[in-house]
């Protein structure tokens, strides 16, 4: 939205402040000004001068030395290359120091050895015209020394460019009268509102007793909230006056013809879009407002044929649609240079419906943009009168026929709203002392009516602020706050009861995992997208496609659904990274998605090496991590019987040997696997990638309890015994220790593997150490002997004979 301050001055006297200050005050009190554009100022130093003599430049054929009178007979000389020079010619002159509209600042400069004292200008150089070459030829009656700006009456103006988004909630600010009210309230100046009851009576004086030439029919189920119209005859389409043309161009609209320009001018001035019909083109002397009822083609003013659907509201004559309600007029019934009879329309429409249609058609107009904000139907009549006033004023001889036709949907009419608020509430909400008098004056400057008794305010809000904007006490607090200036509020700490706050269990849990994996696992934390696509899932042969979690408006097929697992994206990222690193370790704390309201919080750890499998390292990391977190767990072999959702048994990416299920609280809550080389091949990946996934969903919310209990350091010596057994080469060595777990001897303090030695093609030897201990006494040698025998028996019973 462009705000021309010179136009604003129609309604309020602005204080004499630099544009930057005005703009920053508007930003702080009302809405964000994105840019301040100064117009006309650049030309202020330019003078009208008269050429007195010419002589050729001694060093150049094309240049002349021009002497001119710049007022009161004072002379100066410049070097000039213009072709259209003649003695007595009146031209514009820019002295040294002038900054031209193109940004160039004139500095003292020698041209081919001769100092030029400024510059004579063309229209292009002054930003006043296009393409014409040569100096600007000023009328001969101009007195040398006159300021060009004064002579040409070039208006100087400051235009504020306001972010439209910051006006979304303020329908009243889509017109200059409303904007002027903000300036008036902000600067403590009175608003000059010319649209008084006396003015209304004066315009109504132009109405006649004739019947309306147009019959209006508004269908009740249409999206029409109000429809007012008036006919005017004897239109002679003259030129739009310069002041109006320049104003509508300043705010970015194009001048079309007098009537359209008046229509646009009034829309900008009062914030209410409106429309002018050429009455000769209205067939059957009737206008009907209704839902289109069926799909139809309609050519809008911009000559684009658009598809109207049944629920769009349109305005038709007896035979055909003429206007797409609230958005744009049709190509057929618009006003042209030949128009002599018009019908002025000021209507109001259901905001959401206008928005829906305009979004669907991709057609956002100055009109739809305003109707979307929920305008006040009460303002239609004033707008119609203002249109009438300007038409009668600018088309001499034109006259009103009859009086306005009216439709108002009474039950949707915006009403004044009276809210009660206490002085104390305003002060405590803002956290700042404000006097009752100041509050009253702010409310009144915003056109609110105020009745105050003992610090209790009854505030009546005008209809144009209650359509959507103001509805509760908090809205009133805002009005006071922004007018005082939020930056005048002192930051103050609240007085609060002291109470301990701890990081949520989930957060603590995640932080421990992060710290562990970074310090112990030397892994880098990564983030991959929670969105994925069918291609990646197929490429990794993932058995779940998540077709039920596809987005309807995805940006690409690669990211059109929620991921069922962190694994495919991990393989993909590893494939990218193997190009740059021979080995790496990473982890992600992310989510996978099973269904609505079924998000799983998961940890993925990945180890990669070009050279060798790091599966054992991964197992160790997981083992240490879960131990550190005090989570009871067990590794378990692959199972076809019980489903492991984190790494389904039917996923072809699983390794035949390097695989472990992670059992937590009796459930498969995780798994580790080296990724099958064939699966890596799909990703053009070489080397060894091992992944672990642990589902944290059921673990993370629990409090991490440290259940460690100290036990006394033994007072009596322990004794250790080593045994070496022979076993099948392919059998896991750790099964030797498992064989001893059936031995319920409290003296066995620990058992561990010392060494593994491959003896031949089929056998290996495994040395283990057991430590015996009795907390009460030193073990007698007979007891130790007996224990040794029991260990040997247990080993042999499990098929592990001692090596002879």
């Amino acid at each position, binding site marked *: 939205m462009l705000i021309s301050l010179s136009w604003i001055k129609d309604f309020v006297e602005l204080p004499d402040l630099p544009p930057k200050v005005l703009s920053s005050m508007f930003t*702080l*009190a*009302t809405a*964000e000004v994105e840019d301040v554009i100064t117009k006309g100022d650049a030309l202020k130093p330019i003078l009208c001068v008269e050429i007195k003599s010419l002589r050729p430049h001694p060093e150049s054929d094309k240049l002349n030395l021009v002497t001119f009178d710049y007022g009161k007979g004072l002379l100066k000389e410049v070097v000039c290359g213009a072709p259209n020079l003649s003695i007595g010619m009146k031209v514009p002159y820019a002295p040294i120091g002038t900054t031209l509209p193109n940004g160039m600042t004139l500095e003292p400069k020698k041209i081919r050895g001769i100092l030029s004292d400024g510059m004579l200008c063309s229209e292009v150089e002054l930003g006043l015209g296009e393409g014409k070459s040569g100096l600007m030829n000023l009328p001969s009656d101009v007195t040398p020394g006159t300021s060009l700006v004064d002579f040409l009456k070039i208006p100087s103006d400051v235009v504020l460019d306001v972010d439209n*988004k*910051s006006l*979304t909630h303020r329908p009243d600010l889509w017109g200059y009268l409303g904007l002027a009210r903000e300036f008036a309230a902000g600067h403590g100046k009175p608003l000059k509102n010319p649209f008084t009851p006396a003015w209304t009576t004066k315009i109504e004086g132009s109405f006649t007793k004739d019947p309306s030439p147009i019959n209006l029919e508004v269908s009740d189920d249409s999206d029409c909230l109000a429809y007012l119209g008036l006919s005017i005859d004897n239109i002679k389409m003259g030129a739009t006056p310069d002041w109006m043309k320049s104003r509508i161009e300043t705010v970015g609209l194009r001048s079309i013809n007098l009537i359209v320009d008046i229509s646009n001018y009034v829309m900008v001035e009062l914030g209410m879009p409106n429309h002018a019909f050429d009455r000769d083109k209205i067939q059957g002397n009737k206008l009907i407002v209704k839902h289109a009822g069926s799909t139809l083609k309609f050519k809008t003013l911009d000559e684009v044929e658009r598809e109207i659907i049944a629920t769009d509201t349109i305005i038709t004559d007896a035979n055909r649609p003429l206007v797409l309600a609230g958005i744009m007029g049709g190509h057929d019934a618009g006003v042209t240079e030949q128009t002599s009879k018009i019908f002025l329309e000021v209507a109001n429409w259901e905001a*959401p419906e206008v928005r829906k249609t305009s*979004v669907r058609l991709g057609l956002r107009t100055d009109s739809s943009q305003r109707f979307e*904000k929920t305008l006040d139907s009460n303002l239609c009549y004033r707008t119609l009168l203002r249109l009438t006033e300007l038409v009668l004023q600018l088309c001499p001889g034109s006259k009103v026929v009859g009086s306005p036709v009216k439709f108002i949907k009474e039950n949707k009419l915006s009403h004044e709203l009276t809210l009660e608020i206490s002085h104390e509430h305003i002060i*405590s*909400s803002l956290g*700042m002392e404000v006097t009752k008098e100041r509050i009253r004056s702010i409310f009144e400057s915003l056109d609110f009516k105020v009745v105050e008794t003992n610090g209790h305010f009854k505030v009546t809000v005008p209809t144009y602020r209650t359509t959507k904007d103001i509805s509760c006490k*908090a*809205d009133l*607090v*805002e009005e006071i*706050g922004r007018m005082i200036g*939020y*930056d005048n*509020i*002192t*930051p*103050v*700490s*609240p007085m*609060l009861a*002291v*109470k301990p*706050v701890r*990081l*949520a269990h989930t957060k603590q849990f995640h*932080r421990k995992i*992060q710290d562990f994996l*970074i*310090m112990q696992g*030397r*892994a*880098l*934390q*990564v*983030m*991959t*997208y*929670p969105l994925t696509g069918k291609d990646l899932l197929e490429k990794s042969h993932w058995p779940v496609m998540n077709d*039920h*979690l*596809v*987005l*309807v*408006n995805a*940006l690409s097929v690669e990211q059109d659904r*929620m991921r069922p697992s962190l694994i495919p994206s991990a393989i993909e*990222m590893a494939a*990218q*990274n193997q190009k740059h690193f*021979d*080995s790496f370790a*990473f982890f992600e704390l992310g989510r996978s998605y099973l269904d609505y*309201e079924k998000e799983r919080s998961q940890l993925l750890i990945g180890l990669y090496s070009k050279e060798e499998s790091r599966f054992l390292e991964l197992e160790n990391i997981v083992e240490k991590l879960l131990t550190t977190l005090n989570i009871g767990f067990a590794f378990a072999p692959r199972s076809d019987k019980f489903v492991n959702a984190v790494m389904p048994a039917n996923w072809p990416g699983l390794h035949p040997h390097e695989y472990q299920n992670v059992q937590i609280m009796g459930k498969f809550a995780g798994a580790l696997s080296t990724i099958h080389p064939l699966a890596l091949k799909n990703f053009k990946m070489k080397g060894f990638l091992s992944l672990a996934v642990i589902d944290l969903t059921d673990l993370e919310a629990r409090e991490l309890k440290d259940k460690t209990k100290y036990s006394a350091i033994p007072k009596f010596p322990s004794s250790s015994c080593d045994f070496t057994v022979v076993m099948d080469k392919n059998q896991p060595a750790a099964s030797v220790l498992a064989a001893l777990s059936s031995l319920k001897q409290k003296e066995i303090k620990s058992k561990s593997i010392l060494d593994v030695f491959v003896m031949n093609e089929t056998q290996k030897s495994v040395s283990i150490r057991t430590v015996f201990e009795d907390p009460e006494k030193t073990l007698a040698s007979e007891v130790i002997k007996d224990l040794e025998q029991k260990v040997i028996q247990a080993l042999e019973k499990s098929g592990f004979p001692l090596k002879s």
Partner: protein
Amino acid sequence: MQLESLLSEFNKELAGVQKIADLLNLKSKYIGKQGPLSDLMKNIKDASPEEKKRIGSVANEFKTAVESIVAQKMVELELAEINASLDKEKADISLTDSVLEKGLQAGGMHPVTIIQQEIEDIFISMGFEVLDGPHIEDEFHNFEALNIPATHPARDMQDTFWFADKKHLLRTHTSTIQVRGMKERKPPFRFVGPGKVFRCERTDASHEMVFHQLEGMMVGENVSVGNLIYFMKTLLSEIFKKTVEVRLRPGFFPFVEPGFELDIQCLICGGKGCSVCKHVGWVELLPCGMVHPNVLKAGGIDPEKYNGFAFGLGLDRLVMMRYGIDDIRHLHSADLRFNSQFKTF
């Protein structure tokens, strides 16, 4: 006399000793059972008592001197021997991981985690809890409860990812955490909610469809705009590690009333105006405001009795500012050339 020359003889021989065994031999040669001292002692039984006494004390002096010299020499020889063996086993201590091909292989947090944790800790220290919620939300939590009805133009401002049932969506802001947070608590309370949010937006160097926000909310009796400014100023001064000047100006967000845009005084030019702040001296940083009564109601809180403030902070932009990251897309790329730069823990 005899003993004095004996001692100088001993010292002469000692100079040539290189090994511990030789030293022990030398010791026993002079003060051992077969040595001259022992001979001397054997002979003194014929001497007079005074003579005996004198010889005894001289012999003792000699013995003590030899023992002390030997002990000292022993330490020297032992040290030389160990050092010689250490020299043989000398490891190359210049070969740290960082000079090897495999590199330092240090782990590290994701930069978003670094900043997020830092901010979480600041808020914890000020008595805020830290919450999160689901990514897949419904219309109620993402819009309705936040005072954004179906017809509200504010829904245009959010480019929402929708699921096929047209009821579920990916949360477009962490404000959804507000709704759940309010329902589970009784005022007074205050919490923040960091997390991923999703927008259906074409990506480029400064736009992502998945990014991170941190929502904050405080509800109680007589919470004021002054309190909001206090917390924001404190937070930002902690984040930027210097006093940050803030200003509020009106901003429209349906879930707050009054709503504000919070600007910080440009940290580059200190408010004088530069290219970073577009010569305004202020940089827009975060939206905030006093919680709209309708939002409190949707959260089961009586707006007549309680009020509060809320704010939303974009984490990715802070991360990019802190580390000078030029492209937001790096954050979700999992490109370890990016991630491995964040090793400081």
